[in-house]
């Protein structure tokens, strides 16, 4: 007699089992197939092309009625299996019983729905089956859709609806898209491609609630208060193996239904296959391993020896124009080495991860033509030491090649601005070169590019090189560090002209050769980004030198010094008392008056920092930024308040300036002083910006120093009023912030751009002066605040993570 085989779920895995089984032994079993969906097996993967309009449902059906009929399979579609009696060996369907000798679970997964308020409203769907797809297909132009989840499914849903004209926003909780399959660099490129398709992508965005109206979803609310109106909300945040029936049946179930290498569950007559299973602690979400399982299960049923083995997986995304690939384990780590290749011109990123002589992981974006070859190397664990040098160029390439250092410039669009001073774009310059201007001097004469502040000189030279090739001899310029080929000036200018607003954007578009820079370039890039995009870019403490990360100066013994601000050098008994109390309470070994008119508490233990700050905060004292590449001090003298020679209120002006400028980040430290008369007791003429008061107003001079170089300031301008003095100081500070090379004091920047240029643009050009002030104020709206107060809230971070000496003593 034929054995009775019952299959629950007509999915991709069980479908494969039936194919193998009926091909190998057409008459071995009498088969009944239940499926909750009102249809047979289709290629679920291809729902995305159906959604995008590239295919129809008919195209993706794998088993039609005729197929089942030919193989004598009894189909019970649209009917759920609801109960199983293991003693009687009967499956109870919604419409009646079916006895079995052998039973297969192929119940797949359920989409996970975040149980936030509103998740059960109408218009909130998952992305799993044809019904979901059909709802999404109804979203054309004029409809707003929000997709929660920036993984594979969410992005395919988003791209499909965008292709139909809907206005789509993807909300993702992590810092980059598809974080499980991609590294941040590839995630950056993917985001860029999706944005080019008109999709809005919000990262680090936490959804809190779905607001509804008349029982229907109306908008998604985010933690930061953003409200995203929507006609449809798609939740694609993950799947959970569908195990409810197996659990009720009394099978061993963990995250999925437990199976052994033969796909047998804890009951010898019951098998499971597909996304519903858990094998050796793993659950599955891609079809490749499921097909392996299906083959093993068919063989098991036929009494053949077979065992399921997990193997490496690879991922691709089925979105036109987003060519990505990832495989293997691409985390950095133990004995691992990275090979990184970036071609900004083509938007290509490739990263190979090697361990010993083997390739263990790969991430690629933009050019995935060789991905199968790389995947094969990973899967087969081949020795790649011989081809290491050229490995990243793929199978066709033998003979060594290297990234073109000029490709970042070659990639710029014709309208990219090269010279900010004179508004000269790339095509102006290339046209001039083609017209016969073949050296820097000729370019300056014909286009004015690089003829003003000169910070774009490097870029102009690179354009000459790109356009003229070997006919142009490139002067050697120092790149920022070994991670890239560009100078500081080039990096700054490209960040602006290409609107690069994240570190990932800089690494990719400017062809960085390392994953995330080094201790030399990363602090510089962090500064450039925050100076140019104060609102869009978020300062990254991990890209800062310890002093700026800890908001205190590290000492040679690892302790720190704490210097509270004394505005213009003015203090009072209450502040002094608070400082004295803090010094006693935290056993501060040295209390010193600094050369900057304030008090330094030296030798504070790292773990005490947040507490001493919080005590000082209570007395109204804030960080003095004695550690920062930013505003340090504004020294003052007593001025008209007390001094018989004082001409203006130098103390008052100093305090005002310090209150306006504090908290701002600059290329290097910035020190000011205001003296009440030319006797200059505040030593204003050796500061970055010095003001000397005279009867008729204020002399503002810049570019002084008294450190490794001693320099006297040079007069920028004399202005009649205090307000105008403040305006000029803000404007020149901002010009230095926008133009200075990281770690150049103001005098070095001045030597490069010239005092005359600063006078023209900052002082004489009133419109530009006001624009500089406005940009400074915009930045200060974010940075003019006390970092100590913020950091004190993070107190636990300053303590050791664990103390094992205590446990050892027990």
């Amino acid at each position, binding site marked *: 007699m034929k054995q009775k085989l019952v299959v629950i779920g007509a999915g991709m895995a069980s479908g494969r089992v039936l194919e193998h089984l009926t091909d190998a032994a057409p008459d071995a079993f009498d088969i009944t197939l239940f499926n909750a969906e009102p249809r047979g097996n289709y290629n679920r993967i291809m729902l995305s092309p159906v959604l995008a309009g590239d295919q129809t449902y008919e195209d993706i059906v794998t088993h039609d009625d005729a197929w089942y009929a030919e193989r004598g399979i009894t189909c019970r579609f649209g009917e759920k299996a609801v109960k199983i009696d293991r003693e009687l060996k009967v499956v109870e369907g919604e419409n009646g019983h079916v006895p079995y000798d052998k039973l297969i679970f192929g119940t797949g997964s359920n989409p996970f729905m975040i149980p936030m308020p509103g998740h059960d409203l109408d218009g909130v769907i998952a992305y799993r089956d044809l019904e979901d797809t059909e709802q999404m297909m109804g979203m054309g132009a004029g409809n707003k859709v929000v997709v929660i989840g920036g993984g594979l499914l969410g992005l395919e849903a988003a791209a499909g609806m965008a292709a139909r004209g809907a206005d789509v926003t993807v909300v993702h909780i992590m810092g980059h898209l598809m974080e499980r399959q991609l590294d941040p660099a590839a995630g950056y490129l993917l985001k860029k491609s999706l944005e080019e398709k008109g999709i809005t992508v919000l990262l680090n965005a936490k959804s809190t609630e779905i607001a509804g109206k008349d029982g229907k979803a109306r908008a998604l609310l985010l933690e930061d208060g953003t409200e995203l109106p929507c006609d449809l909300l798609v939740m694609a945040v993950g799947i959970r193996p569908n195990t409810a029936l197996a659990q009720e049946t009394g099978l061993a179930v963990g995250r999925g239904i437990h199976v052994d290498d033969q796909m047998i569950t804890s009951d010898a007559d019951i098998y499971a296959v597909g996304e519903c299973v858990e094998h050796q602690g793993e659950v599955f979400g891609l079809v490749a391993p499921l097909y392996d399982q299906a083959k093993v299960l068919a063989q098991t049923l036929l009494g053949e020896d077979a065992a399921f083995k997990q193997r490496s997986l690879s991922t691709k995304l089925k979105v036109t124009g987003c060519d990505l690939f990832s495989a293997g384990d691409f985390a950095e780590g133990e004995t691992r080495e990275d090979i990184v290749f970036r071609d900004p011109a083509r938007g290509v990123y490739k990263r190979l991860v090697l361990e010993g002589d083997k390739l263990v992981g790969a991430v690629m974006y933009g050019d995935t033509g060789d991905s199968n070859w790389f995947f094969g190397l990973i899967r087969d664990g081949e020795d790649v030491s011989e081809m290491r040098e050229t490995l990243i160029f793929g199978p066709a390439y033998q003979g060594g090649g290297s990234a073109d250092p000029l490709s970042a410039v070659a990639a710029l669009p014709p309208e990219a601005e090269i010279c900010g001073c004179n508004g000269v774009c790339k095509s102006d310059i290339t046209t001039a070169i083609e017209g016969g201007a073949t050296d820097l001097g000729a370019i300056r004469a014909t286009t004015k590019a690089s003829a003003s502040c000169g910070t774009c000189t490097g870029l102009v030279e690179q354009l000459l090189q790109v356009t003229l090739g070997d006919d142009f001899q490139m002067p050697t310029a120092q790149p920022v560090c070994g991670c890239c080929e560009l100078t500081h000036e080039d990096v700054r200018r490209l960040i602006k002209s290409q609107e690069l607003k994240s570190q990932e954007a800089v690494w990719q578009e400017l062809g960085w050769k390392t994953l995330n820079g080094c*201790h030399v370039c990363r602090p510089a890039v962090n500064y450039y980004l925050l100076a140019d995009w104060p609102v869009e870019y978020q300062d990254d403490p991990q890209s800062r030198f*310890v002093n700026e990360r800890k908001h205190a100066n590290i000492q040679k013994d690892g302790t720190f010094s704490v210097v509270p601000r004394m505005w213009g050098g003015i203090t009072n008994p209450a502040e002094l008392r608070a400082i004295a109390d803090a010094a006693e309470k935290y056993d501060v070994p040295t209390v010193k008056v600094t050369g900057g008119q304030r008090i330094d508490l030296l030798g504070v233990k790292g773990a005490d920092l947040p507490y001493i700050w919080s005590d000082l905060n209570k007395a109204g004292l804030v960080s003095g930024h004695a550690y920062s590449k930013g505003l340090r001090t504004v020294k003052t003298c007593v001025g008209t308040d007390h001094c018989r020679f004082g001409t203006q209120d130098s103390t008052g002006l100093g305090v005002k300036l310090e209150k306006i400028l504090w908290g701002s980040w600059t290329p290097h430290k910035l020190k000011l002083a205001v003296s009440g008369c030319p006797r200059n007791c505040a030593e204003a003429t050796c500061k970055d910006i010095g003001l000397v008061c005279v009867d008729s107003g204020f002399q503002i001079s810049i570019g002084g120093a008294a450190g490794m170089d001693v320099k006297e300031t040079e007069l920028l301008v004399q202005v009649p009023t205090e307000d105008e003095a403040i305006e000029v100081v803000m404007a020149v500070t901002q010009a230095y912030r926008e133009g200075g090379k990281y770690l150049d004091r103001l005098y070095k920047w001045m030597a490069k751009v010239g005092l005359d240029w600063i006078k023209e643009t900052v002082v004489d050009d009133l419109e530009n002066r006001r624009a500089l002030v406005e940009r400074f104020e915009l930045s200060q709206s974010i940075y003019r605040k006390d970092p100590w107060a913020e950091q004190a809230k993070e107190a636990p971070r300053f303590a050791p993570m664990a103390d*094992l000496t205590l446990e050892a003593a027990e």
Partner: protein
Amino acid sequence: MSWIDIGHIDDIPLRGARVVKTPVGCIALFRTGANKVFAASDTCPHKGGPLSEGIVHGQSVTCPLHNWVFDLHSGQAQGADEGQIATYPVQLDGERILLDSTSLGQRSAA
């Protein structure tokens, strides 16, 4: 080996470090940009700089005092500088960080 739970991976900032006090002295736990965790001595062999305060880049850390760079896996100083820091077995169990207490203890006994 005997693994002890030290904390959650998010207790360490991405591309950052935290210190663990142990019988063999302070050990720094580093978390790289790719979410890999390494354990190594917190003390720079040059002049004792606290490596946990350094900038973490790729799979390396730069000492905050005089910029020596160490590979976090081998503990070797990179480039022209010569020196090495001790490294310790560390494991990630999901998002929990585990340190091997015996290796810390044994070293103290030696």
